[in-house]
């Protein structure tokens, strides 16, 4: 058999303090970045929130000959749009993404009952027309033979109300998902296992968000989808190891939980590497070929997969062991505790035994 890891025997849990320090450092770093960005005047926001959450307009325009971003920015400034982000699309020479924040409604526009959704796109079209001498082409028509022209190939506009609602929903759903997982794992194993798994997953989500804040990667609806997928993936990883721990506990009643957990991690290490590697490869395919629309999504998964594997070993396992041992220390009577070999305590996850009995 071709095996990359044979008889791995690393004491993972010994390094748990280092692991926890690293995790805390990342999250503090994220928090620091978020606060610093939010509080410095004239600085960027804590998160680069996409229009899905902040409201605003993103217009995808295709030019026959794309002007320089500064020219576009000036043209839009002349129309009263000050905070605009121009993003030339790298793999398409004529295309550019124009992002506008929420715009104030002026009196005359409000008379006609228009809202943010309409203003953004109209203003951009007006501004771009000044660059092409008034030539705007329908999306499915070809460009004129002479002179420049532009088409608006895509628009996304979200009003402030919708944006805020989506933001609240996103947070609510993520928390609900975590609760759902806590309940399921608590039911299948013990609640300490469930709690440890949820803490690990929560850490993954926060760490990913921390990196998103530090590097100002855009957070939009697809990122939320990626985070929820990441929750599922990270829990998968944790379950595989907990399953093994449960099985080993039944087979080796004498060992203590600490050694058993290390052993379980080592036994499943080759599966972990291969699976994570394969998921990593499929996410890599997405990052490389998925296109700009999925960029934030792919990056979130990319970072998340790495954290997912890390957290299973570095966070979920140590927390579970520590918690179980504390619980047992509370329950065990003094005389029988240390008399067996190994000097550890006996663990019997009742629901775990029930579950694996059902599987046989």
């Amino acid at each position: 058999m071709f095996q990359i890891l044979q008889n791995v025997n690393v004491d993972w849990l010994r390094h748990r303090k280092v692991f926890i320090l690293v995790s805390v450092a990342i999250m503090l770093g994220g928090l620091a970045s978020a606060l610093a960005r939010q509080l410095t005047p004239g600085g960027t926001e804590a998160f680069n929130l996409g229009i899905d959450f902040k409201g605003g307009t993103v217009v995808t325009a295709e030019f026959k000959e794309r002007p320089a971003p500064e020219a576009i920015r000036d043209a839009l400034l002349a129309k009263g749009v000050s905070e605009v982000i121009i993003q030339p699309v790298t793999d398409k020479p004529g295309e550019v993404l124009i992002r506008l924040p929420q715009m104030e409604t002026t009196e005359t526009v409000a008379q006609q009952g228009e809202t943010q959704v309409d203003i953004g796109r109209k203003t951009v079209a007006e501004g771009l027309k000044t660059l092409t001498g008034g030539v705007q082409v329908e999306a499915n028509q070809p460009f004129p033979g002479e002179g420049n022209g532009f088409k608006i190939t895509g628009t996304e506009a979200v009003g402030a109300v919708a944006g805020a609602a989506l933001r609240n929903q996103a947070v609510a759903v993520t928390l609900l998902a975590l609760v759902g997982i806590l309940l399921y794992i608590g039911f299948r194993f013990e609640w300490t296992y469930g709690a440890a798994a949820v803490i690990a997953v929560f850490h993954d989500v926060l760490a990913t968000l921390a990196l998103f804040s530090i590097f100002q990667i855009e957070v939009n609806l697809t990122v939320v989808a990626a985070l929820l997928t990441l929750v599922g993936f990270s829990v998968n990883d944790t379950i595989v190891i907990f399953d093994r721990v449960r099985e080993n506990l039944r087979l080796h009643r004498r060992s203590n939980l600490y050694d058993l957990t290390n052993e379980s991690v080592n036994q499943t290490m080759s599966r972990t590497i291969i699976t994570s590697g394969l998921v990593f490869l499929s996410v890599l395919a997405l990052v490389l070929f998925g296109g700009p629309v999925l960029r934030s999504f792919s990056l979130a998964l990319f970072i998340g997969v790495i954290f997912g594997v890390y957290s299973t070993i570095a966070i979920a396992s140590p927390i579970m062991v520590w918690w179980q041992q504390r619980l047992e220390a509370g329950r065990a009577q003094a005389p029988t505790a240390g008399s067996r070999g190994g000097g550890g305590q006996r663990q019997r996850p009742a629901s775990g035994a029930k579950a694996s009995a059902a599987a046989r």
Partner: protein
Amino acid sequence: MKKNLLTRVIIIAIVTLLGLTAIFWPGRMPTRNDFTAAGVNNILRQNINLGLDLRGGSHLVMQVQVQDYLRRVTENVYNGVQQAARDLGFDIKEARPEISGDTYRVVVVANDTSRIQEMREQLPRRVNDFDPSAWTSSVSGNTVTWELTDAAKTALGNRATEDALKIIDTRVNALGVTEPTIQAHGSTNSHQILLQMPGIDDPERIKSLLKSESRLELMKVVGASSPAGITTYPTEEAARASLGGTVPPNRRVLPYDERDEPTAAGTTRQPGQASSWVVVESPAVIDGSELRTAEAVTGNPAGGDDAYQINFTLKPAGAQKFGAWTAANINAYMAVVLNDRVKSAPYIRQQITDSGQISGNFTKDSANDLALTLRSGALPAKIVYLEERTVGPSLGADSIRAGVTASLAGLVLIVLTMIVYYRWSGINAVVALLLNTMLTLAALIVFDAVLTLPGIAGIILGIGMAVDSNVLIFERIREELQTGKTVPSAIDAGFDRAFVTIIDTHVTTIVSSLFLFVFGTGPIRGFAVTLVLGLLANLFTAVYVSRTIFIWEMSRKLSRHGRVETLSI
């Protein structure tokens, strides 16, 4: 063992066949063309329900401004109560509507408390469309107050939203949009409507058309009745002054959009600014609900671009009313009022029964649009757009290309890795994976689920997670082989032990996908759906199909060598 294997192979074959049929069956008898690459492409495009972000189209979320509707209801009661007081001879000091925030009230202040209870009972009875269960009335001193109840507010709001939805439905269909989706969106209190229009990449015209209120009213112009011209006033104040300062309930002051005469001296007016004001009688003689048809026609055969006008006809009841009224008002002027603006004021020469005209500065497009909105009925309240996502066709095609490329790349990477690492068993896993992908696609088609760009990402991720199941099983088999078990029992042990873990991992991912489905709209939902379908298909392929292949391999080796010593894994 052999019989077991045969049953399994038959089941797998049937499932595969069903899956392939679901994907590739064109829905009619196949022709020669269907077997070319282009033909297959067409069939796939037809069978797979592509989302807007892949097909191109427009996604709009609009909100019905229910507070406008409630305000109109309140004002209607206010007008009615004021008129009723006059008719019944109640001497009141003041009547006014009180609308603020979420409260809608009509207040009547009498001079004394003598007939206050009478007023409270009798005044509302004479108001049109007054629903006593919707209002609570209270008396305090010499003031009677009617307030709209919360239940009524909710009921009216919901009714307004439903009516608006039907009208928008009519309008969108009249425009000839292919396969639009129109439905209520969000919670009932949000009064939001979702509209999805595939293939529309410039929704501006449609958006204004949908928003257009198109309230038509025909009213009598107050003033001199002579063929010389209607009585107009240069400003709103002048018009009001002619009524003695305040506008009584049976009169309205409206702006008049006179046609721009090219020879008129003076400034050209802004669109939206009236050139003059007129006073009309209220309520209207005829309103939009009595319209039978409305059509855009060229007014002047030799006319230019703005010579279009709308011809409309009335339903029988309305025609009768109109006929009686015009007969009684020959030599007067009739105001054709659209959305509270007088568009034209034709002279009533003789009795008109069932038809009329609206003329103004209409171009062909604006006339057609107006005719369409009149036919569909007036919107009960204003519509405001909350969200718009439009994807042009080229952007959609780009996304499809990106998605497919990423899928294939991911698949290739995974296949290579599995074969290199697990050798012949790797091929076993690859077969299961390909079957999984095919079944996921088939399930999508069968359930008519929408495939979006995140949905394609979901298929890729589903493949990644599906292969995890195979890895779990294979690693377990390797472990069992290392402890010295025979090949067949190692395989059995591997599948059995890994099954529990596979169920656990699948359930948790499905649980988080369910939350995604409930929360998400459009593209996100597409992602959750494809991921869940992929995982469910995986339970079949990674466990049942993989095991069948192993069983087949075992039986082949047994029949050839009489025993099974090794396993390529």
